[in-house]
């Protein structure tokens, strides 16, 4: 009897946890596309600043140099994009497939 009582007590907690997890999963799904968009925007931002690497017109060197030390993440992203750029479609379908 005691065991049943304990189990019965646990049920509402489990139900609440289940719905909470569902919420987290849904929020993750809802934001995945925006996060992908942010990543792309950060990549473009880095390209705008360090465009001279790829032949794009870039801002005056002193602006690039002053922002360079703070842009480690964006630079890393830029180099990753170089590797994945040839297969952008699969990258997008991967993101959409997960939603």
């Amino acid at each position, binding site marked *: 009897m005691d065991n049943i009582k304990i189990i019965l007590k646990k049920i509402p907690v489990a139900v609440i946890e289940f719905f909470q997890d569902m919420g987290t999963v849904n*929020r*993750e799904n*809802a*934001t995945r596309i*925006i*996060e992908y*968009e*942010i990543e792309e*925007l*950060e990549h*473009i*931002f880095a390209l*705008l*600043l360090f465009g001279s690497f790829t032949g794009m017109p870039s*801002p*005056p*060197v*002193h*602006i690039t*140099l*002053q*922002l*360079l*030390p*703070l*842009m*480690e993440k964006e630079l890393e992203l830029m180099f990753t994009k170089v590797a994945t750029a040839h297969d952008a479609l699969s990258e997008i379908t991967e993101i959409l497939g997960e939603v």
Partner: protein
Amino acid sequence: MKVIFFIGKGGVGKSTSSAIFAYNLAKAGNTVLLDSIDPAHNLHDIFSTKLGVVPKNVMDGLSVMETNLDQWVKKYLQETEKEFKEVYKYQEAFNLHKYFRTLKYSPGLEEYAVLLALQDTIEKYSDRDYIIFDTPPTALTLKFLALPSVSLLWLMELVKFRQMILDKKEIVTKIKEGKKGAEVEKDPVLNRIEDLIRVYQKLADLFADSIDTKIILVMNPDKLSLSESRDITAQLMDLKMTVPYIILNKFEGDESICKTLENDFIGTEVIRFKKNDSEIIGLDRIEEYSLSFDLNQLQD
């Protein structure tokens, strides 16, 4: 404090004119600092004395200095490299520090160094009545005068772009973490861009301030010089800067060119500096030369 720039084609006599001008302003009881920001300095020859990066008193109220631009490029790159090393600790493994050695040859750094030097002089010696800059020949001068506005154009676009990214990040944090996420840490890149905007805005305002900043165009009475002066004035107009005075150096009495100038440059006063048989070198010669024309026309 008033700031005066002497600009013009190479070899027209910017340094000599600025020295005569500075001398007369000091003689009239003002405190004047004359600073050469031309990489090829002439002022030490004109004043016949050794000059350096620290102002040297050459007479009552007049001190002269020659800015070392290479030193500014070096200082700036060293500071950036230091900061860069702090962030990218692993960079030495890839020998990235070697990249900094070649950076000093990057296009655009020279005019940036001029700007840094200029800013430093203005901040350090703001107690003087006049700070006069003897500038490099036209190309570099126009570039550094345009630099604040050009930089601002880029920075304004970058700040908009960065803000858009941050707004989206904020949305994601809010969805994921609820309202707590609204207090996102201020982005260091955005902070840096905003700091740069403040610096360049200050300089752009200084260059465009027609009351406290005067641009004096030096030219010779010949066609090439006249043509370049027209181009300079047009380019300065694009930067919202005007030329209130033209010094017609090596003037030989041909009034027709003065008429052309008065027609072409409306609202600009033409000051005639007569051609001299011998070179103006040394304070005595400057004084002697100054006596030969009406000083009142130099009064602001």
